[in-house]
C-alpha cells in the first residue's frame, strides 16, 4: 500500500499525515484533499464488502466523517494512514454485514463469485503505476492459493465470518476450515515476503 506516499503530483504535495494534522485543526480543505486521495480505495472496499452501491456510499461518507471527528485517534506507530483508514472502513462494513445477517439467512457463496480482479478498473494511470507492484503482488499471492484456502480467507475478511460461521455456510468440518485458513495465510505471507525480497534485489 502506498502509505506515507510523498511522490504525489508535485514536490510540495503534503503527506497524508500532514493533511491529517490540518484536519484535526479543522481544516476543511485538508479533508477534501484526503478524500481525493483515498476515497477510491475506501469506496471500492466498501462496495466489495457490502455489495450495495448506496450503502457503500454511506460507509465512505462515514469513514471520512470519522477522519474529521476522530482523526486524532490515528497512531502513526501502528501503521500507515491508508491502512488505518481502510481498517475503519472494514470495521464499518463488518458491522453492516452482521446487521444484515441477523436479518437474513446467509446464502452459500461459490468460489467462482470470489474471483479476484487484478485490473485497476479506471484510467488513473499514475496512481496505478505507483501502486502496481504492491497490488499485483498481493493479488497474485491470493490467486496462487488453492481455491478452498482462498475461499475461507475471503469469507473471513470480506464477509466478516468467523471460523464456525464459515464451517456452517460451507458445510465443512470446523477443523478443516481452521487448517485451510492457517495454511492459506501462511502461504500468502511467504509469497509476499519472497516478492518483497525479489524487489529489493532488483534495486
Amino acid at each position, binding site marked *: 500500500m502506498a502509505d506515507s506516499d510523498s511522490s504525489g503530483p508535485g514536490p510540495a504535495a503534503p503527506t497524508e499525515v500532514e493533511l491529517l494534522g490540518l484536519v484535526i485543526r*479543522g481544516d476543511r480543505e485538508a479533508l477534501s484533499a484526503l478524500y481525493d486521495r483515498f476515497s477510491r480505495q475506501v*469506496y471500492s472496499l466498501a*462496495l466489495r464488502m457490502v455489495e450495495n452501491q448506496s450503502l457503500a456510499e454511506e460507509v465512505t461518507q462515514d469513514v471520512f466523517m470519522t477522519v*474529521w471527528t476522530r482523526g*486524532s*485517534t490515528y497512531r502513526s506507530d501502528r501503521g500507515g494512514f491508508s491502512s488505518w483508514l481502510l481498517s475503519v472502513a472494514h470495521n464499518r462494513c463488518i458491522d453492516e454485514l452482521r446487521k444484515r445477517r441477523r436479518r437474513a439467512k446467509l446464502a452459500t457463496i461459490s468460489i467462482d463469485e470470489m474471483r479476484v480482479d487484478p485490473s485497476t478498473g479506471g484510467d488513473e494511470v499514475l496512481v496505478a503505476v505507483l501502486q502496481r507492484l504492491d497490488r499485483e503482488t498481493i493479488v497474485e499471492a491470493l490467486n496462487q492459493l488453492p481455491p478452498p484456502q482462498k475461499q475461507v480467507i475471503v469469507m473471513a475478511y470480506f464477509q466478516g465470518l468467523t*471460523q464456525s460461521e464459515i464451517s456452517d455456510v460451507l458445510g465443512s468440518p470446523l477443523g478443516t476450515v*481452521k487448517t485451510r485458513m492457517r495454511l492459506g495465510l501462511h502461504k500468502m505471507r511467504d509469497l509476499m515476503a519472497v516478492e518483497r525480497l525479489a524487489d529489493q534485489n532488483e534495486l
Partner: protein
Amino acid sequence: MNCEAVEEFLPAHALGALEGEDAAAVEKHLKGCPTCRLALDGHRLVVLNLPETVPQIDPPADLKGRLMARIDALSASAVAAKPLEAPGVARRWFGFPGQRRVQVLIASLSTVSLFLVGWAVFQTLEVNDLRDDNVEMASEIRKQWDTLAFATADGVQTVQLVGTEVAPMTKGSLLMDLEENKAILMVTGLTPPPKGMTYQLWLWKHETTPASLGTFGNVRNGYVMWRFQSPISLVANRFWGVTMEPRGGSEQPTGELVLAGEGE
C-alpha cells in the same frame, strides 16, 4: 496456551475469525508474549493488504459534495451550540461575571467546538453503554455547556498547545480565566499514562524553572478535559508544557515534553 498452540491460531486471529474461548486464550497469551505479537504482525501485514485485491472503482462524483455538506452542517451546529443560556451556567460554575463577547477568540472557538464534537461523539458512545443512566448524560452535557460558556466569556485567554516529536498527533487548548485563576485544559490524541504515571502541566514565567499547575491522568479515548484552579497567578506567562511524571507529580519536570505552547 503455549506459544506453539497460539501460533496455530494467529492467522485466524489476524483475520478476525477467532471466537469464544480460542479468542480469549490467544488474547491473554499475546499480552505477555512479544514473540507471538511479532508473529501476529506478520499475518496482520497480509490482512492489511487484502483491500488491495479489490477492483478499484471511483465513487459517484457527487459523493464528495454530500460529504462536505455533512461536515459543514456538523461544524455549523457545533458553533451554533455555543449560546444563549450559557453565561448563566458559566457564572454558576466558574463564578465569573461579564457578558459574552462572541467575536473574541473566534479562532480558538473553532478548536473548542471541534474538541467538543469529538468529545460528544465518544461520550455518546460511552453514555449509550450506560443505557438509561440519564444522570450521567445530563452531567456530561452540562460540562460541555460550561466549557463553551467559559470559552466565550470575557477575559478568557486561550493558548494552543502542540504535540512535540514524541506525540505529534496530540493537540490541546488551555483556556484561562486570568481574573479568577481558573482554567480548562482540553487535549485530543493523548496516550493514557502507564500505571504509576501521570501527566503534569507546567508553566514558565521566566526562562529558568517552571511551576507546576497540577497533574491529570484521566485520559479517555485520547481525550482530556481537565478543569482546575491554578495554585499561582496565570497572568503574564510565557511558556506552557506537559510532561509525563510519576504519580503524584514531580517538583520539576523529569519526563520528556509531550505538549507545549507559547504565550503572546
